C-alpha cells in the first residue's frame, strides 16, 4: 500500500464516535476496532474522499510529526484495517 492508494469504509462497517475516539464494527465478522483521537481524525479525513495522500497532507498541517513517520504510521494503520475488513482498497 502507498499514499497513492485510495481506500473506503465498506458498507458492512459501522462507525460510532464517542468523545474524540472512534469505534468501528465489521457487521459481517463481528470484529470491533478502536481508534484514538489521531486515528479518528485520519478516519474522518478518509471518509471525505478516501484519498490517503490528501489525508497525509492534512494531518501534516495539524500534527507536529515528520512526513515519513506519519506516512509509515498511516500506511501501517490502513493495512491493519484492510486486513480486518474495516477499510477497502479502491475509491
Amino acid at each position, binding site marked *: 500500500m502507498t499514499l497513492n492508494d485510495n481506500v473506503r469504509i465498506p458498507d458492512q462497517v459501522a462507525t460510532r464516535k464517542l468523545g474524540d*475516539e472512534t*469505534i468501528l464494527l465489521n457487521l459481517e465478522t463481528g470484529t*470491533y476496532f478502536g481508534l484514538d483521537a489521531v486515528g479518528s481524525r485520519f478516519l474522518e479525513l478518509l471518509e471525505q474522499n478516501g484519498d490517503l495522500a490528501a489525508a497525509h497532507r492534512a494531518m501534516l498541517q495539524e500534527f507536529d510529526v515528520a512526513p515519513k513517520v506519519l506516512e509509515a504510521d498511516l500506511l501501517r494503520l490502513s493495512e491493519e484495517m484492510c486486513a480486518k475488513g474495516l477499510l477497502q482498497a479502491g475509491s
Partner: protein
Amino acid sequence: MIYSYRICDLVLTSNTVLPELATANALGAECRFELLPAGNSSADDVDWFHHWTIEENENDEVEDSKEPWLRFGRTADGYLLRFLSCGDFVVSADTMKIQCRPLPGTPEATVRHLLLDQVIPLVLSRRERIVLHASAVLTRYGVIAFAGKSGQGKSTLAASFAREGCALVSDDCLVLRAEHGGWTAIPSYPGIRLWPSTIEEILREDAPTWDVAHYTIKRRLGDTNVLPYASGPAPLRRLFFLADDAGEVSLEKLLPRRTIMALVEFAYNLDIKDAAFLRRQFDTVVRLTGEVPAYEVHYPREFAALPAVREAILKHLEEQRDLDAE
C-alpha cells in the same frame, strides 16, 4: 404439572421444578421451558456457526480447552445449543420456547444450571438491550457491576460486598435497561455460585449450599438470610472490569474504546452472525459507555485483599457522588 417462575424479569413456565427461582404468576408467561426425556443428540440440517471453548477448572483458573464445550447451531426453526457432554437445548426463533434433551445420565441439577446460567442469558440477549456476563451488588450509591472472565473473581467480590450488607443483584447474568435517563440493573435470581474455599473464607459459617453441576465443585448458595438479595431494579452507577492479578489495589478509568471492547467481550449474544442484532448491540454499548463510567480494578487475588478492594471502590463512589448526581 406446569410451574411458573421469574428470572431477570422474565416469566418462565416449566414442566419441571426449578427450585433456584422465585415463583411467579403464569398469566404473564413469556417463555416456556420443557424438559424432555434423556436421549442421545440428533439433529439434521444444523448450521453450526459458533462455539465456546473457555472453561473454568476446579482450581479456580481459566483454561482454553481445545475442544468446544458449547456449540451454537442455527436450524430452520431457531437455534440449537449443544453442550457436548450434557445435552441439547433447542430455542425457538422467537425465544418463546426452550426444550432440553439431556444426554442419559446428566443430573437434573446440571440441566437446571445450564438452563438458568447459560441458556437463559443467551435467550435474554435477544430480548433485552444488553445482558452482561457480570455480577452486581446494590450499594448505598446504586448498583455496581463486576465484569470479567470466568475465574477472575466476580462472584467472590460480589459475595464479599453482600456479606457486608450490599444486596446481590446478579451472580453472572446482568440485564441492563435504558430507563429514566439512565441505566437500570434488573436482579437476576437469588443465589450465587462459589468455590468451597470462598464460602469458607467469606461466610465463615455453615450455610446451606447445593450442587451447581456434576462437572464443578462450585456450590450454589441461595439463602437470602446469609447473603441479601436485591428486591427490585435499581440504577447502575459503575461498571468495573476485573483486571488480572495485581500487587496492589487500584482503579483505572477506562477510555471509551476500551470500555466498548470490554462490554462487547462480556455481553451475551445468542447469534453473533446476526448483523442487525450486532448493529443494535453496537449502539447500545456506545450509549452505555457514554452514560455509565467504567473502571478497571486491579487487586491481589487473595481473600485478605477483599476489604481493601471494597474500601477503594466505596471511597471512589463517595468521592464521585456529586458528579453522579448531575
